[in-house]
């Protein structure tokens, strides 16, 4: 069996509110094999970012992790004390965020910010840390790296800032990079550059967990994909299988929505209705209210996430019937 960089098992996370606990992440299990790019796709509020934060140990109060195991390079880190979790962040696992402007310190030169990450994890001199930062800037394709390192974030374009973020995440050579919508705030020509950079990082041995709502980004970059809906994984498969033979009606709805936009024609395919309120989920399948194929059983009984073909799982009572139709 291939070695796993990350194995999250039965992750649960929630936000307590006056009206009860919002179960934003519900029994989510994710594997990231070494040297691969694994995607999580879903619409806003489906729990994909919360899953990433739970894995990183970066839950923002009042959100909290309520259960599950997180195995990083063969070691369960979910119950480690905060000090030890903190030592892992940056050195063994890193995360980059959607908005590179708000993730950088505006009053500190970007080279220093990257050097700071080095000095947190390695016992090196300031000069050495600065040198490594510049080296990393070159590695992520920042031209004129030495002078760019002396810039403040506001002096850099969005694409350059995202490269700085990636440099900061990668400077201690972590095995796992979690990228939460890394290109959503960027223009398409810059997005293409960043996607190529992430592919190169993966080829150089970094495992990547990529979170995106953009099926184009997922199709171009990922080896294996998880689809999330209302806090749960509803389908998972290799990228080719997922796009060619989607088994869950939600996945099909998403793919149809995107492909009808590209096909032309008068009316676009949509998914009926809206995402349900996580506090008032329907009794059975969370997607039953929006599903065209919904049957009596779907409204009563939450389907299991079950294997319908090797490496392909779906959370739908009718998956077999739907997959090949």
């Amino acid at each position: 069996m291939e070695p796993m960089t990350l194995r999250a098992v039965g992750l649960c996370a929630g936000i307590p509110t006056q009206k009860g606990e919002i179960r934003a992440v519900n029994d989510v299990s994710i594997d990231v094999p070494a040297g691969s790019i694994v995607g999580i796709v879903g619409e806003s509020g489906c729990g994909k970012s919360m899953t990433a934060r739970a894995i990183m140990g970066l839950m923002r109060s009042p959100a909290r992790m309520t259960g599950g195991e997180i195995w990083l390079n063969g070691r369960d880190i979910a119950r480690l004390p905060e000090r030890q979790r903190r030592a892992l962040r940056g050195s063994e696992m890193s995360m980059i965020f959607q908005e590179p402007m708000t993730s950088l310190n505006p009053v500190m030169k970007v080279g220093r910010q990257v050097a700071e990450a080095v000095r947190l994890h390695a016992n090196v001199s300031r000069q050495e840390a600065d040198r490594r930062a510049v080296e990393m800037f070159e590695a992520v394709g920042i031209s004129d790296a030495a002078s760019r390192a002396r810039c403040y974030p506001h002096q850099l374009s969005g694409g350059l800032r995202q490269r700085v973020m990636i440099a900061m995440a990668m400077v201690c050579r972590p095995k796992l990079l979690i990228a939460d919508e890394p290109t959503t705030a960027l223009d398409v020509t810059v997005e293409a550059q960043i996607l190529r950079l992430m592919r190169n990082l993966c080829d150089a041995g970094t495992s990547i967990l990529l979170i995106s709502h953009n099926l184009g980004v997922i199709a171009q970059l990922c080896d294996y994909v998880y689809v999330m809906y209302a806090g749960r994984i509803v389908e998972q498969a290799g990228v080719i299988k997922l796009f060619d033979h989607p088994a869950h009606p939600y996945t099909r709805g998403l793919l149809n929505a995107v492909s009808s936009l590209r096909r032309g024609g008068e009316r676009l395919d949509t998914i009926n209705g809206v995402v349900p309120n996580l506090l008032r989920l329907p009794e059975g399948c969370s997607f039953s209210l929006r599903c065209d194929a919904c049957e009596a059983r779907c409204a009563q009984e939450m389907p299991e996430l079950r294997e319908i073909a090797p490496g392909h799982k779906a959370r739908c009572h009718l998956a077999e019937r739907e997959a090949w139709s």
Partner: protein
Amino acid sequence: MSEVLLEARHLSKTFPAGRNRRVHAVSDVSLRLFAGETLGLVGESGCGKSTLGRLLIRLTAPSAGEVLLRGERIDDLSEAAFAPRRRQLQLIFQDPYASLNPRMTVRELIAEPLKTCRACPTREATTQRVLELMDAVGVAREFLYRYPHQFSGGQRQRIGIARAIAAEPALIVCDEPVSALDVSVQNQILNLLRELQASRGFSYLFISHDLSVVRHISDRVCVMFLGRICETGPTEAIFRRPRHPYTRFLLDAVPQPDPHRRGESVRLLSGELPSAVNPPDGCRFHTRCPYATRQCASDEPQLHGEGESCVACHHPLE
């Protein structure tokens, strides 16, 4: 060809950028918008597409140039003289969370433009008209007295659309109307915009950075780069056979939602976007263009072409 609804002649807009410098947001743009058509405006952030949209409906005053509504100049009118024409030019905003007053109910929100243009004489008539508009955009009538925070993003955008169509405009500028929405909801809104256009016949200026959305909804497309239109033409012609190198790069960069078409010789644009404070001489794209020659660095290419297709490039692609 149908009637020219709106025309821009040599429009420019600069904004002060401190220390006597100016940002050249829109430079010497001329275009025509026909009645009943959808004109797509694409380009990357900072290319001036939103500023151009605002110039066309007189929300921003141009630094130079003219805007004509049905052949009549509107940029030099006084506010009072322009007021009766305001209702013909409306806007739908990008962010449905920020563009609705959180303290107004749906009724008040949709009635506001009706009051401004004095469309309904009585309170009852206003309510009746608000309900009709809610039907038209697909917001249930029972939500008449709800507040914006009680709606999802897609529903809010429907309320924004009801406000825009309330005064029965001739032109609606849609500034990234679906960028903040999830894909399944985005398609619902695009379908709605199309239906409304088919039944009510207004024109759209559709501003978006999402090329597949623009391709779906537009009859014609203008591609902007750094304040200038670099290519314009019928949608399918632009998408099938782009002639400006920048258009080509823009189309190639879109990640295809098809894992079988991965890593197809995508050529990446190198370098950084030039500054709009100091735009390059000659063609504004020449610093990043692989086909640039000495002529491109010195001579500004003008839009030229046959029929509807025009390109501003000394060496257009075949």
